[in-house]
Every structure is written in structure tokens, then in C-alpha cells.
């Protein structure tokens, strides 16, 4: 495939198809809707199924069923819709099903939801936050691979800007390391053979091959979190060598921050940036290294202050941590608002660098 000008929603849909995703269910909600529209058109063309689910609760349930058969399957919504799905996210994680979830979020206020989750129990989702459409195409394909590799859900954190702007991108299938066979999936063929399978979050098998039960199951699933943390941290950094100030940002705003940092560097200001690509596992070590000997660590995020908690954990008190982002939306509540502007971000970074107060 060659490069083609595509809206981010279409590019992510094409990336899902290129990844072998053959089932999607979702419920329309701005700015997620176009992803659903494109998958509704594309999946049947490749022998897949896209269901316009009657609710988010049912969308995630349908994806659950498709995943249990071994298919690559996904669901998505905005953060509001994902709130409705949290119970299933918890249990799908404990059932070790490789769900991919798209959050085409309204801003960045779903950072806690994505990285901490709103469901019950000990669970984590790998969270990948692309800064632009080209990266979204890569991270979408990586998401399907990581979900299968770890048998753990992966959430792709998009937003209004990603969904509704266009770039020329190439959506060729990417190559990843081989994966083990899905010898846990059900296809209905083992009934009456005494080898039938159960896909369950409860750690139960069949009486002739019992699972360990809930405590043993939880103890078996949860250690994956440490392994994922060790292996799947993704981060981009820049201009850190002699930096006196560092700005941390993720997702589409990070591209603006990276541009501002580049401008200031050209003008001789000693500022660098850290861009977490994986929000969980969070790049604590990269943040810790960046914070060595600097005068400030700024956090620019389009919300009331969420990732700043993780930055503080990473900084470990080695430098002052300053929030320079904030709540920012247009009147509809869907868009990204006036803060997502190079001049605004530059002004806030300069205020910290010069020791002034950050404008509210």
C-alpha cells in the first residue's frame, strides 16, 4: 500500500484491518463515531463483522465472545462510553483475553481511567498514546500484537484531533515476532471429548482438569504486570543532555510540546522533553533520568492534572514538578480547546523558565 491522505479514524480502522482484526462492536459517540463508521464499511469487505451495538455494555460483551473464539477483536468509544465497559474490562483482563480498546477521548481527562481503570480487582491495561496519525497506525498494529503476546487488553488512547484530522500515511501490515498458538480458545469442537475448554475469568476449568480457583488464578495473572512493566515501556525523549527544564506530555499535545521545545532550543533555552508513548507501563526511569539536576519538570496535559501524579512518582522529589496544562475544551465538550496552541504552550513554558507564575 502506498501513502494516502486519510483521516485518523480511517487510518486506525485500516490499521486494525491490516492487523487481522475481524470483529468490532461499538456504539456511536463523538469523536469515536468515525472509527466505527470506517470499520462498519471495511470489516465486511475482508470477511469480518462489525456490529453497531445497542449499548457500550453489549459492544464489549460481543468483543468478549469473539475473542473467546480466538479471533482478533476490538471495541472502543470515548472515555464516557468506556466508563460503561469497565466491569467487562476487569473481567476480560482476568480471563486473559487479548482485547484491543480504542478510546477516541474528549481531551486527556481519561488518563486515570486508562492507566488506573475504573473497574474492580487487580488489573492493568497496556496503554499506547500516539501523537499523530502515522504513529497511530503503528501503535494500533502493535496493540493487536501486544494483546496477543501478553493475553492482556491494550488500550489505544486517541482523541478528537487524531480522529478528525488527516495525514498522508502508509497502512501496510507490520511484521512482529511469532506468537504462540491460541490453544486456550473455544471453537465448539471439543464437546463430549472430556477435553472441552472453558474461557473464564474465575480460574475454573473442568472437573477433570480443574483450574486453580480464584486465588490461584489471580496470583497467576497479576505477575504479568511486572513482566509487562519490564518489557513494554515506550518513550521518546529529546534535548535532555544539558536541559535545565523538562516538559512531559503525551498524545497529540506532545507533538505541540515537542515543537515548542524545538523552537526554544533554537533560541538557546535549555529545555528538553519526555513523551511517554506507553502510559502504562509508564516510563518512570526516563522521567527520573530527565529530572536529574534540572530546575523544573513541567507537565503539559489537557486535563485537571492526572499524569502529573506519575511524573511526581518518576521525579522522586529530585526537582519541582509544575503543571502547565489544564482543562481545555471547546463549547461542545468534544474538542481540544484553546490550550492546544503552540503560542499558549510556549508562553507557559517560558513563564516557568523565567521564574514567573504560570498563567491560569
Amino acid at each position, binding site marked *: 500500500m502506498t501513502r494516502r491522505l486519510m483521516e485518523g479514524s480511517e487510518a486506525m480502522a485500516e490499521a486494525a484491518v491490516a492487523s487481522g482484526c*475481524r*470483529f468490532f*462492536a461499538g456504539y456511536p459517540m463523538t469523536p469515536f463515531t468515525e472509527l466505527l463508521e470506517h470499520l462498519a464499511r471495511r470489516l465486511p469487505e475482508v470477511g469480518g*463483522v462489525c*456490529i453497531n*451495538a*445497542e*449499548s457500550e*455494555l*453489549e*459492544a*464489549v*460483551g*460481543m*468483543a*468478549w*465472545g*469473539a*475473542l*473467546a*473464539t480466538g*479471533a482478533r*477483536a476490538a471495541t472502543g468509544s470515548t472515555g464516557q462510553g468506556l466508563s460503561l465497559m469497565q*466491569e*467487562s474490562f476487569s*473481567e476480560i483482563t482476568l*480471563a486473559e483475553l487479548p482485547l484491543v480498546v480504542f478510546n477516541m477521548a474528549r481531551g486527556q481527562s481519561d488518563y486515570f481511567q486508562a492507566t488506573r481503570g475504573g473497574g474492580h480487582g487487580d488489573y492493568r491495561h497496556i496503554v499506547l498514546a500516539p501523537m499523530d496519525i502515522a504513529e497511530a497506525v503503528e501503535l494500533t498494529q502493535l496493540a493487536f500484537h501486544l494483546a496477543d503476546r501478553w493475553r492482556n487488553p491494550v488500550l489505544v488512547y486517541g482523541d478528537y484531533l487524531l480522529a478528525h484530522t488527516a495525514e498522508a500515511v502508509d497502512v501496510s501490515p507490520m511484521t512482529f515476532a511469532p506468537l504462540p498458538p491460541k490453544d486456550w480458545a*473455544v*471453537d*465448539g*469442537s*471439543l*464437546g*463430549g*471429548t*472430556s477435553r*472441552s*475448554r*472453558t*474461557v*473464564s*475469568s*474465575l480460574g*475454573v*476449568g*473442568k*472437573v*477433570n482438569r*480443574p483450574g486453580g480457583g480464584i486465588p490461584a488464578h489471580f496470583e497467576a495473572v497479576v505477575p504479568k504486570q511486572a513482566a509487562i512493566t519490564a518489557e513494554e515501556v515506550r518513550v521518546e525523549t529529546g534535548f535532555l543532555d544539558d536541559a535545565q527544564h523538562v516538559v512531559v506530555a503525551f498524545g497529540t499535545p506532545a507533538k505541540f510540546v515537542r515543537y515548542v521545545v524545538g523552537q526554544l532550543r533554537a533560541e538557546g533555552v535549555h529545555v528538553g522533553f519526555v513523551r511517554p508513548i506507553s502510559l502504562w507501563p509508564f516510563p518512570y526511569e526516563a522521567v527520573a533520568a530527565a529530572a536529574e539536576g534540572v530546575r523544573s519538570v513541567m507537565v503539559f496535559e489537557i486535563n485537571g492534572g492526572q499524569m502529573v501524579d506519575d511524573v511526581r512518582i518518576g521525579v522522586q522529589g529530585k526537582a519541582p514538578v509544575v503543571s502547565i496544562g489544564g482543562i481545555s475544551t471547546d463549547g461542545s465538550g468534544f474538542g481540544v480547546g484553546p490550550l492546544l496552541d503552540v503560542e499558549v504552550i510556549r508562553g507557559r513554558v517560558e513563564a516557568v523558565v523565567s521564574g514567573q507564575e504560570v498563567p491560569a
Partner: protein
Amino acid sequence: MTAERSIVPTGSPPASAHRVAELTPDLLLTEEHQMCPGCGEPLALRVLLDTLSQLGVAQRTVAVMGIGCYTSFSGTMDLDLVQALHGRAPSVATGVKRMLPDRVVFTMQGDGDMVNEGLQEVVHTAARGESVTAVLLNNGVFGETGGHMTATSVIGQRTKNTLEGRDAEYHGHPIRIGDLLATLDGSAYVARGSVHNAGAVARTKRMVRRAFESQLRGEGFSFVEILTMCPTGWFVPTAEGPGYMDDTLGQVHTMGELKARPGGGPSDHASGALAPEARPGGGPSDHASGALAPEARPGGGPEGGVGR
């Protein structure tokens, strides 16, 4: 029933005889389970598993289980199986069926699971005409939590949170889920059976068979509601379970085939028998009043408690 009647030995199979019915259904890995004495759910389970065996579809069937007492069957049913969340089995079954369209897919849910927590799921799945068979084990009570009101508990039914009996003005009315699903264009076969006596078990088995046959013909959504005894959750002696069921739930959730596609294969309902078999007085609202008051129950022992 006098003590001096001779007891026939029943410890081992007799000579010169042939077995007509087996101890354990083929598709059960063990006959042991943790259900209470007198529970109707194992009876429904046998009906279901025997039917799948007889249809010869065990090796192309996926079960999707809800959450309730019956969930423990997931470990004993020798079927490929997906465990769903409380209320969510119909959407999970939808995902399974869409990926495996040539398999037989069925759900097993209780009334708390299907009619309370997940009502919209079963309604939407039926309306979509999803080619799955939903099996409801309806005992009108949350059995697993210890006997609490569900959306199918009948007026007058005593539960742990309707101590004086379900009161329509205070607790609202029961949902006749089978009747509701039968109104939807996507449902192809809808029936309500029970397991409160051997005749009802036999009729219910025919319903389950027709439901699966309907799915195999690709007619749309099929549904069998099976009324099951829960003497523990009803606070009645085990032997009185069938009679209590017949006098209370059975009067509101009346048994019979509610819907079948015309020309849908061999069945005995082509001649207008689609109407519920025993709906006294015609109007559903007739069931809401007095008949279910606790004092109206026959106090009978086993003999008085069965048969209708």
C-alpha cells in the same frame, strides 16, 4: 406406603434387563454438584445436555454461561464454554456466533441474570434475530444470594426483601420475559416449560429440541424459559417445591409454546397450539391478584404438591 412392603435391591444393574436411561447425561463429566436438595436446575441441565447429545451437535456447540447457582455447571458440562458476566451472556454469545456461524451457540442464564441485570441484552439479541438459543432458568428468586426478589418474582411471593410478599404497589410487577420476547420480529421460537413434574420435563425437552432445531435451520433467535424449583430460596420444604411452583410462578409465567415459525419442521403446534397451554381467564392481569398469597398454597405433602 407401609414398612412391610418388600424392598427391591437397587445396588447393582439387574440381569436380563436393558438400560433405558442413564445415570449421568453424556455431556456431564460428573453427576456431582453443589445444588441444594430439590433444586430444579439440574433437571433443566439434564434436559439440555440430553437434547444436545440426541441432536448430535455436542462437537459443534459453544455454551455461554451467566452467573448464578447454575454457574457451577460450567466445570461439569463437557462442552466448550465461555463464562460471561452477570447479565451479559447474550452479547458474548453474539460475538461467539458471529465468529463461528456454523456452530450451535446457547446461553444459560437465571432470571436475576437475564431479566434483572441484563434485560436489554436478551431483548436486543432477540430483536437482532441473532441465531443463538437462550435458555432461562426461572425460579423467581435470587437463589445464590439466599432468596431475594427478582424481576420475575410473582405478586405475593415472599423473599428476603419482600418479607410480606411482593406487593405490586411497592415492588412493581413481574416481567413475563417469554411473552415480551415473543413480540419481537427477530425471535423465531419462544416457549416456556418447567421441571416440576415428569410430564413437564418431557414437554420442556421437546421445547428445547425445537429451539435448537430452529437455530440449526437459521430461523433467528430462539428462547426456552424453564421454570425451576428453588425450595431454599422459596423457604418451603423440598418436597413442596413442585407444588409451590405450580401454584405461584406457574400461574403467572404460564407454560406453553409462545411462538414458532410456521412450517418450522415437525412440531405439534401447527394447529393453533401456539397459545399458552393453560392461561386461565385469558388476561395476563388476572394473575396479579390474590391467587399467589402464601395461604393459598396447598399445604400438601409430596402427593398433593405435584401434577397440574
